[in-house]
């Protein structure tokens, strides 16, 4: 893919990733809302990979690649942390989250609702997460 960045697995790098994606999207003149949605979906995936797959181990890295081609935004993250199993994922019941005072568990729901395609693949020890969304 056209644009790439490598970050260590620290939450403080989330802002760096958002700025990176904003820079790539800038020339495509998307609405504020659409641009924010795409940045949000990427942020959610990267936060999950940093916190859950790699336990915020700063000696580990994520490779992030982004491209806009044929009116489509594409994102790929590659890491060697624990793989995510989408089959175990359940869409959250927000009212139940409120009742129980739950803090987490709504990030992937945002990603699923924003993106056209959300794909998790593991090849050997490498995990790949790929997202795409039409922007034209």
């Amino acid at each position, binding site marked *: 893919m056209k644009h790439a960045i490598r970050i260590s697995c620290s939450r403080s790098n989330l802002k760096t990733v958002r700025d990176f994606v904003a820079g790539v999207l800038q020339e495509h003149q998307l609405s504020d809302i659409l641009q924010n949605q795409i*940045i*949000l979906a990427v942020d959610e995936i990267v936060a999950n990979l940093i*916190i859950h797959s790699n336990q915020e181990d700063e000696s580990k890295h994520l490779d992030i690649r982004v491209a806009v081609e044929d009116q489509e935004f594409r994102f790929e993250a590659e890491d060697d942390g624990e793989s995510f199993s989408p089959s175990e994922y359940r869409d959250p019941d927000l009212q139940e989250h*409120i009742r129980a*005072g*739950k803090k987490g568990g709504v990030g992937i729901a945002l990603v699923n609702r924003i993106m056209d395609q959300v794909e998790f693949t593991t090849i050997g020890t490498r995990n790949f997460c790929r997202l795409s969304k039409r922007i034209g």
Partner: protein
Amino acid sequence: MKIAQHTDNDTLTLALDGELDASSSVSLDTELTKPDILSYRKVMIDCQRLNYISSAGLGVFISHLQRFQDAGVKLVFFNMQDKVHNVFEILGLDSLMTIVPTAQEAASV
């Protein structure tokens, strides 16, 4: 994330300035966890300078809402930017939380 506090009788206003992500939302959570906050009748969140919110930021509000309701504290959001409001809408949180356009309306809720 900068959080400015203003107290007016039984109302606490927290003005958020910056971005609420998995890193920066910790300070907001600390603020909302303080036991004193339950002594107010209303907590108003001024979102004018809140430029970004992720699920971690939403999670902070989701996790305190019931505790506030049980203590009789109203949680009201106002001055929210369209792109931030959109994130609440994607999950349907706009119908579970009180979000109004202006400070005036927030004061009269």
